[in-house]
C-alpha cells in the first residue's frame, strides 16, 4: 500500500496555529507513507496538479488530504482521484482546520492534535476499498412547499425548465404576505398586482399542479424519490417528487410580545401592516403627530430576537414618507437604533425622507402610555444620553420578521435543521447557502432568515436552479455508504432485521441468512452496531476503520 499525505496550509488558516513542517516530517518517517508534503492551498489548481503528479509518479493508492472539514471540497478531491485513474473512495479527508487549527491557539498542542487526527485518517484509510457510486433514478418533479413570492418564483422557474411542479400552499390563496402589501418600495406597485401576474403565468402552465388549503400529511423517501401525502380539501393525494423546495416564509412579529408598547390594547398603536391597510380611514387631526418605532421585534435579546429583520427600516421610511405626502404639516418622528437602508437606492430614500421633514431620533423606547388626548411616548435619547417624553396622536411599530409558525413542524417532517432563531439552517452559510443537510431539499426565501422581496425572489430562483441541476439528468449518483453482509459470518439471528428502521434487511428462509436491499438502505449503520457476529458492515465506516481511528487518536506520538 502506498499512501500519500498532503497537508494544506489554507493560507494562514492552518499554518498559523499548526506547525505543518513538523507534521509533514512526522509522517514522512512512517513506514507505510510514500509521500508526505505540505502545500499552501491543496484545493488550488497547482495544488491539485501537484497531488495528481505524485499519484502518477509514485503510484499512490491511498490519498490523505489534511485540510478543511471533509464536507467542503469533497467532490473536488473525488474528481481529482478519478482524473488520476484511482477510485474516488480511496481519498481520505482529515479536517485539521475546523477541528484543529481554528479551535485552539496553542501551536504545540495543535500540532500534536493535527498529527493524531491525520494518523487516524491514515490508519483508517488502510481499510478503504474501492467503491462504486450508487446510481439512483430521479423523478423529474419538484415539490414546492409555500406559495409566497419565493415559492412562486421557484415553481415558475422549475416549470419553465421542464420539471413537473407540485406547489403546496397552506392558505386559500397564493401570494403569502406579499399579496397584502401596498405600494412596494422601490417598484411602487401593489403586492396584489405582482402576485396575480406570477399566479396567472403559473396557472397557465401545464406541468404545474397547485394545491391550496393543503397541508403536508407525511413525508418519506430519499433523494430522487421523495414521497409525500398531501391533505387537500378534496382528500388525500400521494405524490412522488425528486426534490423539495421549502419556501414557507415568515410570521410577522407579534407586537403583543412587547406589552409596554400597548399594541392590541389601544387602537392608536399599530404595526406597519395595520397602517397600510387602514391608511385611508385613519382618524387623526389635520396636523397629526406621529411616532414611528424601528426595530420592534428585531435586535432585541430580551424577547429572543437578536437578529436584524432587514426590511423594517425601509418599511418605517415608507410609512414616514406616506404620512408626509398626505399631511404636509404633520410632525413625524422616527425612533431608531441604526437606519439600515441597505437595498439599492435605500440610502437615497432615507435622505429623501429626511428632506421631507421626518425627524430621526436615535433612541430606545421604554413605554407607550395611552391617555385621553394622545399617546405618551417615553424613552431614552441615546445620542444625548437623556430621557425624553413626547405626546403623539399615533404610534406606528415597524415590526420585524419572526420564523414561520410551521417551521418546527416542517423541520421534523423533512428532517432538516433549524437555527437558533428557528429559521431553517443552510448547509454552509457561504458555500451552500440554498442547500440543507439533506440532499435534494432546498430552502428558499424568508424561511431561512429575513429577506426583502427582491432577495426572496432571487433566493427562490437560485434554489430552483440548484434543484434543477440535481434532477435534470434523470439520474444521480449518491454515496454508496450502505450496509453489506458477510455471508460466511451471518448466523441468521435476525437482530439487524428487527433494528433496521428503513426495513432494508430481508431474511432469506432458504439460506438462513440476511441480505440488504441496497435501494432501501439509508446508511445509518445501526445494523452494524447491533450485529453480535460482526457479519454486517456499513461501507465506508466498517468496524476496523473506527477501531483503528480510536487507537490512532490516543496512541503516543
Amino acid at each position: 500500500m502506498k499512501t500519500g499525505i498532503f497537508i494544506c496550509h489554507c493560507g494562514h488558516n492552518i499554518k498559523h496555529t499548526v506547525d505543518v513542517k513538523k507534521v509533514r516530517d512526522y509522517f514522512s518517517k512512517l513506514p507505510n507513507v510514500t509521500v508526505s508534503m505540505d502545500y499552501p492551498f491543496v484545493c488550488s489548481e497547482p495544488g491539485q496538479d501537484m497531488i495528481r503528479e505524485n499519484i502518477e509518479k509514485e503510484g499512490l493508492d491511498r490519498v490523505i488530504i489534511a485540510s478543511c472539514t471533509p464536507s467542503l471540497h469533497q467532490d473536488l478531491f473525488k474528481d481529482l482521484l478519478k482524473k488520476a485513474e484511482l477510485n474516488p473512495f480511496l481519498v481520505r479527508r482529515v479536517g485539521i482546520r475546523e477541528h484543529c487549527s481554528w479551535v485552539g491557539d496553542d501551536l504545540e498542542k495543535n500540532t500534536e492534535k493535527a498529527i493524531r487526527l491525520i494518523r487516524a485518517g491514515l490508519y483508517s484509510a488502510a481499510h478503504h476499498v474501492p467503491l462504486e457510486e450508487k446510481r439512483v433514478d430521479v423523478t423529474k418533479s419538484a415539490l414546492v412547499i409555500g406559495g409566497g413570492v419565493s415559492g412562486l418564483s421557484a415553481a415558475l422557474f422549475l416549470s419553465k425548465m421542464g420539471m413537473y411542479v407540485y406547489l403546496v400552499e397552506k392558505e386559500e390563496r397564493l401570494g403569502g404576505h406579499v399579496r397584502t402589501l401596498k405600494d412596494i418600495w422601490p417598484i411602487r406597485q401593489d403586492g396584489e398586482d405582482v402576485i396575480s401576474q406570477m399566479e396567472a403565468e403559473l396557472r397557465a402552465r401545464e406541468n404545474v399542479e397547485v394545491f391550496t388549503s393543503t397541508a403536508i400529511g407525511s413525508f418519506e423517501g430519499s433523494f430522487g424519490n421523495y414521497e409525500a401525502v398531501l391533505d387537500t380539501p378534496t382528500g388525500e393525494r400521494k405524490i412522488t417528487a425528486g426534490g423539495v423546495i421549502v419556501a414557507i416564509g415568515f410570521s410577522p412579529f407579534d407586537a403583543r410580545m412587547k406589552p409596554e408598547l400597548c399594541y392590541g390594547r389601544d387602537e392608536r398603536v399599530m404595526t406597519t401592516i395595520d397602517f397600510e391597510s387602514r391608511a385611508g380611514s385613519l382618524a387623526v387631526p389635520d396636523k397629526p403627530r406621529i411616532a414611528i418605532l424601528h426595530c420592534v421585534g428585531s435586535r432585541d435579546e430580551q424577547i429572543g430576537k437578536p437578529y436584524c429583520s432587514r426590511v423594517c427600516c425601509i418599511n418605517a421610511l415608507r410609512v414616514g414618507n406616506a404620512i408626509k405626502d398626505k399631511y404636509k404639516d404633520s410632525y413625524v418622528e422616527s425612533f431608531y437604533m441604526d437606519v439600515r437602508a441597505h437595498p439599492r437606492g435605500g440610502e437615497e430614500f432615507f435622505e429623501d425622507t429626511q428632506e421631507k421633514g421626518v425627524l430621526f431620533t436615535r433612541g430606545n423606547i421604554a413605554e407607550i402610555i395611552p391617555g385621553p388626548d394622545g399617546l405618551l411616548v417615553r424613552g431614552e435619547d441615546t445620542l444625548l444620553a437623556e430621557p425624553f417624553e413626547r405626546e403623539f396622536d399615533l404610534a406606528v411599530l415597524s415590526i420585524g420578521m419572526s420564523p414561520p409558525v410551521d417551521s418546527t413542524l416542517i423541520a421534523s417532517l423533512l428532517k432538516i435543521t433549524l437555527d437558533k432563531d428557528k429559521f431553517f439552517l443552510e448547509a454552509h452559510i457561504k458555500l451552500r447557502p440554498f442547500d440543507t443537510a439533506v440532499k435534494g431539499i432546498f430552502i428558499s426565501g424568508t424561511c431561512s432568515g429575513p429577506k426583502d422581496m427582491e432577495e426572496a425572489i432571487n433566493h427562490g430562483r437560485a434554489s430552483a436552479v440548484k434543484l434543477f441541476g440535481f434532477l435534470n439528468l434523470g439520474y444521480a449518483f449518491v454515496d454508496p455508504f450502505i450496509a453489506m453482509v458477510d455471508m460466511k459470518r451471518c448466523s441468521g439471528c435476525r437482530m439487524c432485521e428487527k433494528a433496521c428502521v428503513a426495513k432494508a434487511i430481508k431474511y432469506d428462509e432458504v439460506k438462513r441468512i440476511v441480505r440488504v436491499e441496497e435501494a432501501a438502505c439509508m446508511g445509518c449503520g445501526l445494523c452494524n452496531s447491533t450485529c453480535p457476529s460482526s457479519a454486517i458492515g456499513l461501507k465506508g465506516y466498517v468496524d476496523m476503520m473506527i477501531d483503528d481511528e480510536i487507537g490512532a487518536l490516543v496512541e503516543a506520538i
Partner: protein
Amino acid sequence: MEDQAGKNPQIIGFACSFCTFKASEMAGSLRMKYPEGVRLIQVPCSSRVDPAFVIKSIFEGADAVFVAGCHPGDCHFIKGNYFTRRKIAALKEMFDAFSMKEKLRLFWVSAAEARRFVEKVTAMHDEIKEAKDAGKTN
C-alpha cells in the same frame, strides 16, 4: 501506574454527521475554542456507535468518551438516536459497575448549536481534568 495528575485528559467523541459533526464544523468556522484533548470520530449516525468502540477507547487510553447525536425526534435516520439512547444507558450501567460512570457521556447537539457543543465538551473536559488531578480516576 504512572502519575496522571497534571496531564490533560484525552477525550474521544463520536459525532453524528448530520448534527453534532456539523455543529463542530460551525464551532470551528466561528473560531470558538475548546480543549485540544477533545477529538472527534465522524459516524453517519450516533446509532453506528457500537458499545465496543466506547470500551475500546477506554482500553486504548482515552480518559473519557462521549457519544453525541441529533436531538431525540430529529434523527436524520428517523429513530437511530433512540437506539443510541438505549444502548448507551445500558453501557452506563456497566461503566457504573466499574466505578467509571463519569467516563461516558451522551448528549444531543443539533447542527445549529455550535455554542452548546463547545460548552458541553469543555465542561466535560474540565470535570475529567479535575478528577484526574485529584487522583480520583482509575
